[in-house]
């Protein structure tokens, strides 16, 4: 691989700080919406539930993105990927989002420890004492163990995210190829840890909202959703940063095309997992399982389900398939933003139908959506601010990665 001087010219240290203080200000400004959401919630019926579920939805929406990023970083290291080096640092930053999220999820855990059943019925001793099934599950679904698991999950993720970012930043200085080998060796066990933590986190925080219902594929479903979210965010941020003069030369249409392909592929993967779960439950028709979809077909949730089928899968499958759509930054931006919204609706659809109002599934309402949107923007502000803080003065590209040249010269076939 011979290096042209042209390639060398593309390597420049740039940091997110070059964007100025504006992004941080906007992010912190958005955070104000979090208390606003709380206030709106209080003004409507069942406000506490609405806010609590919206808050859970928002944190787990952003968590899915960061976990997707963490997975991407590790799999790229593991497979010795060359093409993705220029966009790996950005993914490493996104993965660092688990740190602000660890703090943001903490109130949920504390609330559960306090025995509140706003979110989790199994946290309430009285409900458990009347429910045979919950008693059987109590060795797993109890607030003490829940809190310990929270520590394990976030501890592992923070450890992994920090490890891969720090080693990579270290290489910016030293250019030591040994670091690449080290990260390659660590990424294998890292992925193993990741697979189990993300699955059980999804089971604990989302699936156990309905403690009677169960599905073995649930962890993979959340993982698939997270990858869709992550690739959307990656494409959006690449296009945004390029418009602001960052990574303009290193990241070419070829890289955007590849991110687009991955986004498309993982959207199909999500659909595959979703249909696998739906078809098996639909076909076997066992009441204890179909209840999940029954809740999501009544009280206005049927429309949301249809939006997911058509909007999340069918429309992008047909229109986002073409090569042109992925190679044009404008259309790619549109589809990424669109799929990010769809991913948001997906998590919304997972979490919110578990909210009860007088024993019945809470209907979809403007109030609920308003609370949730405000909540998401508020949490998102804190999340982005956290990431910006972690990114600090670090370069947005691994400038001395041994495979950087390969990435810069990358061409699709």
């Amino acid at each position, binding site marked *: 691989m011979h290096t042209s001087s042209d390639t060398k010219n593309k390597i420049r240290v740039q940091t997110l700080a070059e964007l100025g203080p504006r992004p941080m200000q906007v992010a912190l400004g958005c955070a104000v919406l979090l208390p606003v959401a709380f206030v709106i919630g209080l003004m409507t019926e069942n406000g506490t539930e609405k806010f609590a579920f919206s808050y859970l939805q928002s944190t787990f929406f952003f968590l899915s993105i960061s976990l997707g990023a963490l997975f991407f970083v590790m799999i790229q290291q593991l497979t010795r990927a060359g093409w993705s080096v220029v966009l790996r640092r950005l993914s490493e930053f996104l993965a660092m989002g688990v740190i602000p999220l660890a703090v943001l999820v903490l109130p949920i855990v504390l609330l559960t420890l306090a025995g509140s059943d706003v979110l989790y019925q199994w946290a309430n001793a009285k409900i458990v004492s009347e429910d045979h099934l919950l008693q059987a599950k109590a060795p797993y679904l109890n607030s003490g163990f829940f809190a310990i698991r929270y520590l394990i999950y976030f501890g592992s993720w923070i450890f992994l995210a920090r490890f891969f970012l720090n080693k990579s930043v270290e290489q910016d200085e030293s250019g030591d190829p040994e670091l690449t080998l080290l990260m390659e060796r660590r990424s294998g066990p890292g992925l193993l840890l990741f697979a189990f933590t993300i699955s059980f986190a999804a089971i604990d925080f989302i699936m156990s909202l309905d403690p009677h219902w169960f599905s073995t594929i649930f962890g993979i479903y959340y993982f698939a959703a997270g990858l869709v979210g992550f690739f959307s965010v990656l494409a959006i941020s690449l296009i945004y940063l390029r418009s602001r003069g960052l990574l303009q030369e290193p990241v070419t249409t070829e890289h955007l095309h590849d991110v687009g392909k991955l986004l498309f592929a993982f959207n199909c993967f999500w659909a595959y997992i979703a*249909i696998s779960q*739906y*078809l098996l439950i*639909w*076909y076997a*028709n066992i009441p204890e399982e179909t209840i999940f979809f029954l809740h999501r077909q009544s009280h206005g949730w049927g429309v949301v389900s249809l939006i997911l089928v058509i909007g999340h899968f069918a429309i992008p499958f047909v229109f986002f398939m073409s090569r042109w759509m992925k190679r044009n930054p404008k259309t790619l931006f549109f589809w990424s933003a669109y799929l990010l919204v769809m991913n948001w609706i997906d998590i919304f659809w997972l979490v919110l139908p578990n909210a009860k109002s007088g024993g019945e599934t809470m209907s979809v309402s403007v109030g609920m959506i308003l609370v949730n949107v405000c909540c998401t923007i508020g949490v998102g502000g804190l999340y982005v601010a956290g990431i910006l803080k972690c990114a600090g003065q670090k370069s947005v590209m691994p400038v001395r990665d041994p495979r950087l040249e390969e990435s810069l010269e990358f061409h699709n*076939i």
Partner: protein
Amino acid sequence: MATTIEQPVKTKAEPELLGLLAEFDDPNALIEASKKVRDAGYQKWDTHTPFPLHGIDEAMGIKWTILPWIVAACGLTGGTIAIGMQYWMNAVNYPFLISGKPLFSIPACIPITFELSVLLSAFGAFFGMLVLNQLPKLYNPLFKSEAFRRATNDRFFISMDARDAKFSEIDSGEFLNSLNPVNVEEFWSDVESPKLPRNLKLALSLVGVILLMPPALVAYKRSTTTNSPRIHIVPDMDFQPKLKTQNTTNLFSDGREIRPNIKGTIPRGQFKDDNIPLYFGLKYLPEDQDVVGIALQDEKKADEKQPAAAEKPADPVLDAAAIEASKLDKLPWVTEFPMPVTEKMMARGKERYRIYCSACHGLGGEGDGLVSLRAMDLQQGTWVKPASYHTENVRKLPVGRLYHTITNGVRKMPAYGAQVPPEDRWAIVLYLRALQKSHEINADTIPEAEKRKLRDTK
């Protein structure tokens, strides 16, 4: 210098110059050369490489293929066919309810729709590629060149077609030589068109004949009749060692394979004494139950009757029939339907009638069903024409008697009691009555609108 060459007068025996072939040993040299050929304005030329060479598309100015659109169209066709097929076959043409699943539903359609879309897309990609490339094309004048054999190994070629507007033997040759090839040669058409070897022709015709034999055999067998019974390929399955109703066995002391009811029991669903009119078409059960062909529920009674039944064959058959008929006339038949008569029952009766009865009795009940017509056609001596319902005799029969006939059969007509449940038999009787009414209606009582409708249908 574009001097045209004197074209010699073509005779059939003369080979024709088809083009020039330039050989390169380095892929990069080929790409450079291709750019020059492209820029020189040639249209009908090609390069030949042992593997797909990247950068050659731009160097030659090859246009993007339309293949993806062909594939998309094929995929869409496949999906549409799959959905249409599943809908028509399972919900329209052969609706069959299995395990409570809807006859047609999107989730259950997904797998096959997906598979057929992929299958047809794959055909589109493969055969589309072949068609666009005009393959298979087993004869190619280039293959005569010994050097060209390395085009699939380690050499790179430019071929230039003599039909190109810019082509001239001398100029183009010089031009190709200026590109620094290893070698430039000409290729010519054959004097004679190539022929298949004789042995191959023979072998192919033989294969063709052999392939034709099975369909010919099938066609022959389908168009002829035979007296010999069919071949039993799997005798184990055709002649299974199992007990059948009318056979004898040493297994049981009475020698019968069919087992009688166990004393003091009634088979499930066979308790009939609670509704005599519905099950027997009689107001009450007569003394001589044997006449009615009643499946006796009391085993003791059946045992007593047995000797009497055994005597019967001694009588002349016709006499027996006459005696039986006269006995039947005297029975206390019900004259009213033992169940509420509804529109639904009529519809059911019509449907059942058309399934079970119309084959012999005809759609109108005149005894002119297809089976009957065919039997008459074949002039089978033993055939008895089925009764028409529109004779005075049949009209007079009470509904109970008609029901009894369906249940137990009469003369040549077999019993349908085992196949058609009682409610359906009554429904058929109801429809039969309707048929009879339709044949003796007074024309004046029909409203004008109905009459017009009848005329129109004629």
